[in-house]
């Protein structure tokens, strides 16, 4: 019995060996001008038309192959990191989020683009879109789509949107007392990345900084405490519903869409959703920049995606051509018209065609000018986690603002020092 088994197993192994060897060879020996891009699923879908067009035009030369990543942003990052850590990454280009850039760059996985980017190209970018692409003075990423935090307001309920935190509360209270809306302001209060985005806008609007340009953590500052206290006040005073501490973008949008709230903090994509036929507030919505204290600057959290070339890629020149194509004016026009992707080229904000498509383009331009990236440290993911946890504690329980932000400060500093950050 054993005697017959052994050759059998050996044959099976031999066959599978040859088989998998073939597959292996076919992927590494593929067409020398095939450029592989890793994108999260939504982007892979929205660029499909552009990619197909490119592949047709350049039939003999470069072809783009899109690897459709998972749906969730974090899983895409995990996938990219695990392939880069292993070495021999199968991707030439990775579409990366603004918060990953310092980490990927510091790990030495990305190709600096300084020599490839022409200064005219760089100048053509909107100011805010230039942010978040560099690490330690080198450009590692070319922006594909910008995203900024915006304040949505109800045009039918007030003449002017508020510009300061105090005004926002005042108007909300008035409307709530009159029984016109259930809530004043809905935002993202769940313990997740969205809360960090909300906080960044506020702390800057109150004149502070999460992490300053010297890399110092400033979570225990006066303005930081004021910003968090204000968030807490929104809930205790009833301007925001208690449930806001479990809201993500989706829940905030739902509440605003059915007319429950006077104000909402959200990203540009919400505009199109609010003006669909099923929306109860269609045509009644205005967009403006984020509130800030008098004499302080209104700030929008910058969320943006951009293309980076991996260091291990053997097709860097071809890859750069692909990036240039996917981010050129025509592509951006198409993506803005079809999917509402905020353009990164400043010229496009003057385009009459685009203004016809969307009246909020001028506001987007201002918001992008005021945009600020989250702390640009490779350890961002951890320190953001710490911040979310502490703010969440403050707004859900009745924990002391000062002590809790002090604790957040200490934990953040500890993370930086144990990872080897020099002080």
């Amino acid at each position, binding site marked *: 019995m054993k005697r017959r088994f052994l050759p059998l197993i050996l044959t099976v192994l031999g066959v599978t060996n040859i088989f998998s060897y073939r597959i292996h060879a076919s992927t590494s020996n593929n067409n020398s001008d095939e450029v592989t891009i890793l994108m999260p699923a939504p982007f892979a879908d929205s660029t499909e038309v552009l990619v197909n067009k490119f592949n047709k035009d350049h039939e003999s030369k470069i072809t783009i192959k899109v690897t459709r990543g998972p749906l969730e942003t*974090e899983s895409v990052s995990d996938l990219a990191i695990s392939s880069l850590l292993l070495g021999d990454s199968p991707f030439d280009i990775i579409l990366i989020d603004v918060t990953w850039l310092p980490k990927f760059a510091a790990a*030495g996985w990305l190709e600096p683009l300084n020599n490839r980017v022409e200064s005219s190209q760089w100048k053509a970018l909107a100011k805010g879109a230039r942010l978040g692409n560099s690490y330690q003075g080198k450009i590692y990423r070319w922006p594909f789509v910008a995203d900024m935090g915006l304040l949505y307001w109800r045009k039918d309920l007030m003449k002017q949107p508020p510009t300061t935190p105090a005004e926002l509360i005042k108007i909300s209270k008035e409307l709530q007392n009159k029984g016109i809306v259930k809530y004043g302001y809905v935002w993202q209060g769940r313990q997740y990345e969205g809360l960090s985005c909300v906080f960044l806008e506020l702390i800057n609007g109150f004149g502070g900084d999460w992490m300053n340009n010297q890399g110092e953590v400033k979570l225990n500052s006066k303005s930081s405490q004021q910003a968090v206290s204000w968030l807490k006040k929104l809930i205790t005073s009833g301007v925001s519903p208690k449930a806001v501490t*479990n809201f993500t973008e989706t829940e905030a949008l739902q509440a605003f869409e059915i007319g429950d709230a006077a104000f909402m903090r959200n990203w540009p994509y919400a505009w199109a959703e609010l003006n669909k036929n099923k929306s109860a507030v269609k045509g009644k919505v205005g967009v403006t920049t984020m509130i800030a204290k008098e004499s302080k600057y209104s700030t929008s959290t910058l969320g943006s995606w951009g293309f980076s070339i991996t260091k291990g890629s053997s097709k860097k020149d071809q890859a750069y051509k692909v990036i240039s194509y996917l981010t050129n004016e025509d592509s951006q026009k198409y993506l803005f018209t079809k999917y509402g992707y905020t353009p990164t080229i400043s010229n496009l904000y003057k385009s009459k065609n685009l203004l016809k498509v969307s009246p909020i383009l001028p506001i987007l331009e201002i918001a992008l000018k005021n945009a600020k990236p989250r702390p640009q440290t490779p*350890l961002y993911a951890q320190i953001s986690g*710490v911040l979310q946890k502490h703010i969440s504690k403050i707004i859900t329980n009745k924990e002391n603002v000062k002590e809790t932000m002090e604790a957040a400060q200490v934990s953040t500093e500890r993370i930086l020092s*144990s*990872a080897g950050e020099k002080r």
Partner: protein
Amino acid sequence: MIYILSFPAAFLLVIVFLLPLFRYSWLSIHASSVITGLEVIPNNGANWFRLFNDERFWTDYMQTLRFAVSSVSVELILAILIALLLNHRVRSKDLVRALTLLPWALPTTVMALGWRWIFNTPYGPIEQIFKFLKLEPINILSDPNLAWISTVIGDVWKTTPFIALIILAGLQTIPDDLYEAFRLEGGKPKQAFFRITLPLLKPYITIAVLFRLAQAFGVFDLIQVMTGGGPAGSTESVALYSYLNAMRYLDFGYSSTIMIASFILLMFACVVCWFIIYNSKRLFQKSKL
């Protein structure tokens, strides 16, 4: 001479089991992260200092313990019941046994996805039942208190058959004469269970519980796929935390520190558990008297 035969296997075991422990101990006293360019640099025990003060680690540790203890105890009770049932003479016993074994054999990630759908809000069957009964939706996977229970359910579903099998094997070693004698002496069936069955099953229970406890303590697949550690970190286990530190935060020094620490804490938990089971007879008898 003969021992040479075991060298290749021993070599492999050393590489895969012992080498990592040394490597982790070494890394845990160094900074090796994206900040240091993935180089290994001494950092004077900053990792350990951070660990002792890391609220997230200790929360995760307590969550992991809670997960392990609750799922293993539920599994044990269910498994004993199932084993007692299967120990009866039933028709098509083999088929029944094979079918109850199925959850154990399926890949964890496969059914973790299944559970994600079953507990989905608002379309999953559980929420549909609530809707049908005209109750408020309960948002199972986004409620920190319900999410961890749903992970326990997923674990219980998958591993109860394993414990049941072991206990069944134990049951089959108990001779029927013992029960017969006990009944002749006037004992009731319920008493027989506590006086004969449980004490004789103890070795089997011990091994099953220890094994499962260690496995549940290292829970990773189920949670990573089912909840990703969320909502708000309420289902995060130590294994997931160390995975995130390495693969998402690129901090290998701290990730190693977590692994060493959880290994030590696990051994501690196992010793405690073994002690409890070992002394259970005495405790049990004392409470009876």
